[in-house]
C-alpha cells in the first residue's frame, strides 16, 4: 500500500474534563483530555454535542482556546437563553465526559510561519481563538508584531485579562469598553469605530493580516472599517458567532 495515506475520518469522540477555570462571572474555561486528538492549529474550533435522556441532541461550535501542543481547552460564555452554554459553564464538572468532534476549520487559522504583522480584533468572547493565536506566537518563538483590539462591555467582562496584560514584547493590547468604564480608565470607550480602527490598526502599507472574531454585527462593522482603511478583503479573516447552532434552535 505504498503511498496510501490512511485518512482519519472526522467523527464524534468522548473527551474527559480535566480542569475548569472561572474567567469572569459568566465565562469558564474547560480543559479536556481527548484520547484521539490529532492536534490542531491556532484559530480552529470544535463541535460539542449534548444528548438529553430522551435522545434530543444539541450541537454548538466553540473556538479552541489553547495553542497547538497544549491540552485542548474551550472558553465558553454562558448565554442565559442558551441550550448548551449553561450546562458547560455551570453543570459540567472535572471528571465528566463530553462528546466532541474536531478540530475543524482551516479558514480562520494562523500559521506561525507567517511574517505579516497581525491585527487581532475581538468582540466579547471572540477573543478566544485570538488567544490561541497569541499563545501559538509565544510557543513557536515567532516575532511578528501583534496588535490586539478587544471590545468588551465592562472591564469585569474582559476574558484572560491577566494573561493579555502580561504579554508585552511585540504584543500591544488595546481595550475599548462599550457599556461602562471604571474611574480613571485610560483605555478606549465605546464601540469600535472606523476612527478607532484607524488609530489602532497597522497601516495597510505594512501588509498586515487581520483576524476579526465576535458577534456578526461587530465582525461586519470591523471588517468594513478595515476594508475602508485599504485592507484587501482577503487579508481580513472573519469568524462570526451566535447563540444558536448552525443546525439547531436555541
Amino acid at each position, binding site marked *: 500500500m505504498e503511498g496510501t495515506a490512511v485518512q482519519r475520518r472526522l467523527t464524534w469522540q468522548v473527551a474527559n474534563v480535566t480542569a475548569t477555570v472561572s474567567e469572569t462571572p459568566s465565562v469558564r474555561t474547560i480543559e479536556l483530555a481527548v484520547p484521539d486528538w490529532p492536534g490542531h492549529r491556532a484559530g480552529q474550533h470544535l463541535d460539542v454535542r449534548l444528548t438529553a435522556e430522551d435522545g434530543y441532541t444539541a450541537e454548538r*461550535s466553540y473556538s479552541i482556546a489553547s495553542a497547538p501542543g497544549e491540552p485542548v481547552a474551550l472558553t465558553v460564555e454562558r448565554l442565559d437563553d442558551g441550550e448548551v452554554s449553561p450546562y458547560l459553564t455551570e453543570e459540567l464538572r472535572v471528571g465528566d465526559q463530553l462528546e466532541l468532534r474536531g478540530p*475543524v476549520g482551516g479558514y480562520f487559522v494562523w500559521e506561525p510561519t507567517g511574517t505579516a504583522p497581525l491585527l487581532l480584533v475581538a468582540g466579547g468572547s471572540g477573543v478566544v481563538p485570538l488567544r490561541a493565536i497569541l499563545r501559538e506566537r509565544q510557543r513557536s518563538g515567532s516575532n511578528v508584531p501583534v496588535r490586539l483590539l478587544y471590545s468588551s462591555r465592562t472591564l469585569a467582562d474582559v476574558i484572560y485579562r491577566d494573561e493579555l496584560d502580561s504579554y508585552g514584547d511585540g504584543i500591544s493590547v488595546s481595550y475599548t469598553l462599550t457599556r461602562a468604564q471604571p474611574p480613571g480608565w485610560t483605555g478606549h470607550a465605546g464601540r469600535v469605530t472606523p476612527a478607532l480602527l484607524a488609530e489602532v490598526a497597522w497601516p495597510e502599507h505594512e501588509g498586515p493580516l487581520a483576524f476579526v472574531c465576535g458577534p456578526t454585527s461587530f465582525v461586519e462593522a470591523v471588517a468594513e472599517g478595515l476594508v475602508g482603511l485599504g485592507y484587501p478583503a482577503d487579508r481580513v479573516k472573519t469568524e462570526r458567532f451566535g447563540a444558536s447552532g*448552525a443546525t439547531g434552535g436555541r
Partner: protein
Amino acid sequence: METLDGNALAGLFAEVFGEDMTTTVITCRTCGTAAAIGDTVVYPNPMAAIARCPTCTQLLILITQIRGVSCVDMLGVA
C-alpha cells in the same frame, strides 16, 4: 435574525466530505460571487445546514441528515 458564517458548518462539512472545506472557494450560480465556504452566510435552521451567498444570500449548499444518512445538495453552486 441572527446569522452565522460557514465556519459554523465546518464540522458537518468535514464529516460529510472527509476534509476541511472552509477554505474551499465556491461560486454563486445566481450572482457569480466567489467566496470561501467559511465566509458564506448561515441562518440557524433546525432542519438543515444551509450555506448562502454572502452577496445575494441565495442558497448555495444544503445538507440534511436524517437517520444517519447525509444528503448534500450543491444546487446554488456554479
